[in-house]
């Protein structure tokens, strides 16, 4: 086991800035290994920002800056000796809009392993089959691996993206509203898949859909917005962690009135 026991990722006093602007302030939470943790909250509360700070995806945005500690298996991910490329391999990501590469299904899944230097056709074949099976897409595409990934339906594309992510054998999968562009049936398939994947992977999911959080997640973090009027007419807004608890607990007996109003759907 890792030195932090059941915690895969620990955030401690994390602030995220975009340029001079504070986006998220003082987030501390522990994400448990092989559990699904959901981030919920109103638009603009910074839940995606926090998610993207976990695998250093924010580095790609010019001017983005993270303060505080993001610890993965005891290692601070923002320590100078850590290479973000390695972080992103071990902490994979699935995005809001299915974004397969404009290549064949096979090449989509084999992309990550090829980046790592795997050249053997036999090994690649095995990884592709294993990953597609892992994403429950194999039976639908096995006869047609040369077909373009873009030719699949939206739900299949999203599962292809999941297969692509698990092909590099990450330990954590971050999902940024993975079902918001999918219809209910495709959503169901992805949710079912998450419940299977969680036996092997730690999953963090951002969702706008409270029912989804309730259906799939073990833990839920509720983010909310703080406002401050700097000068009249100009408002500073940033996100904070409102409440973090086991999902059943958070939805049945929320600690704060704000959480309760949000999960009852009074604002969003």
């Amino acid at each position, binding site marked *: 086991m890792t030195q932090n026991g059941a915690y895969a990722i620990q955030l401690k006093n994390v602030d995220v800035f975009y340029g001079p602007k504070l986006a998220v302030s003082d987030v501390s939470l522990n994400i448990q290994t092989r559990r699904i943790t959901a981030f919920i909250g109103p638009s603009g509360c910074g839940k995606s920002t926090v998610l993207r700070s976990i695998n250093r995806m924010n580095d790609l945005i010019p001017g983005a800056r993270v303060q505080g500690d993001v610890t993965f298996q005891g290692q601070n991910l923002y320590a100078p000796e850590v290479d973000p490329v390695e972080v*992103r391999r071990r902490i994979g990501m699935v995005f809001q809009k299915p974004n397969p590469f404009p290549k064949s299904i096979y090449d989509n899944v084999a992309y990550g392993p090829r980046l790592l230097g795997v050249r053997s056709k036999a090994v690649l074949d095995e990884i592709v089959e294993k990953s597609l099976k892992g994403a429950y897409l194999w039976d639908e595409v096995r006869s047609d691996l040369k077909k373009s990934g873009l030719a699949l339906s939206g739900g299949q594309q999203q599962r292809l993206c999941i297969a692509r992510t698990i092909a590099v054998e990450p330990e954590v999968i971050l999902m940024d509203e993975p079902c918001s562009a999918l219809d209910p049936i495709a959503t169901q398939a992805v949710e079912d898949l998450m419940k299977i994947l969680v036996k092997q992977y730690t999953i963090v999911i951002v969702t706008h859909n409270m029912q989804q959080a309730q259906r799939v997640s073990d833990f839920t973090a509720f983010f909310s917005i703080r406002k401050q009027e700097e000068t009249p007419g100009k408002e500073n807004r940033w996100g904070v962690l409102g409440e973090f608890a086991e999902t059943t607990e958070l939805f049945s007996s929320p600690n704060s009135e704000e959480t309760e109003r949000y999960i009852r759907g009074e604002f969003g």
Partner: protein
Amino acid sequence: MSASVSQANLLPTGAEFQKGLARRNFRGSVWGRFYSLSLLVAILALIALVLNIVNSAFGYAITAYEVEPTALVAGGDVGGLDAEQLVVILQDYQERRLPVYIRDNLSVVDPSIFTQVPLSESLAGRTFPAELAAMTVTELTRDQQAAVLAASLSVDTLRSLVEVEVIGEQVIHPYALSESLFERSRIDAELLEALEDEPNARLEFRSWLNFEFLTAAGSSDPAAAGVRTALLGTLWVIFITVLFAFPVGVGAAIYLEEYAVPNRLNKLIETNIRNLAGVPSIIYGLLGLAVLVRSLEFITQGRTILSAGLTLGLLILPVIIINSQEAIRAVPSSIREASFGVGATKWQTIWNQVLPAAMPGILTGTILAMSRAVGETAPLIVIGASTFIVTDPTSPFAKFTALPIQIYQWTARPQSEFRAIAAAAIIVLLVLLLLFNATAIILRQRYRKSLQG
């Protein structure tokens, strides 16, 4: 409450609405007519251009032979004759000029000493009867001179000598296509006039653009002149241009789009690249002359294909950079994120995802820039492309001429025959441009298809 009342007052209804609608529709139809008129003007301009060129490139011409081909060989076709028969014709009709043919086609020494040195020296390395080696050209008999020509020259060279020197087709008066179609009676009258001076004169319909025109080298005789030298020169120059401008331009675009942080310096650079794209081409010619032809002469060896190619490369570099930047910017960031998300480095992401997705746009931009370079005349004149040259370019360090230069030079001549072949050369240039643009379209479609599977 008051909402319904105020709405009825604020927005027109009934007859007022109908009137307003008619006015709105009228305004739309006026604009629509203006747009179609604009298109009509553009189409008319294009048609006028094409007609003007075709008008000059085809039509009747009054021509005359020095010697009728039928007098040389039955049927008048010298193409079927072998080397010996051709030499016999040369000997029969141009006996005194045989030494000149030897000098122009075979001599390896300076023309001023050609007649004074023995053949072993003046024709060193050529094949000729060995027993003649000690003699000078002027000591040979006519038969021996003919033997030297027959031994060394190819059938093609001999045939073109016969065509130019013996048959000697002369264009007395070319006519435009419009004249040929509508003023036939005047042409016939002029033919009768011409027959008084030149009993061999005859009228023939000529396409100045023909296979011989494409394959013949430049010549001061318009009937024999062709565009081969200029066409090869243009292709060589464009090859160098693209070889230089494509990698450098795409590289700069990748840097600006993917690596450069948006600070003031980089913004300044980007703005100036955009300005450079609008600098008149003659200024690039001056740059090429000062830097490539003069200062870097030890590399480029002066007014060569290399200098011209690099000058045109500099000219289209900003265009390629801007087009490539736009193509790279159009690649959705979701593809970049997906690549980074599975642990790709920045370079792996650029090489494997961004560049392939941007390639259709980059290629289209490059080929369009290339088309611009093909037609450029001013910078080539400034750096000193040869205006008259008959030897094909064989390396980047060769002297050269190019199609637009050749066209410019031909149109500047007073004789009307040259205007006709200039029009033919313009057609060659236009076809070349069309080929480039068609390639751009095909490449783009191919890439797009391979991306979407």
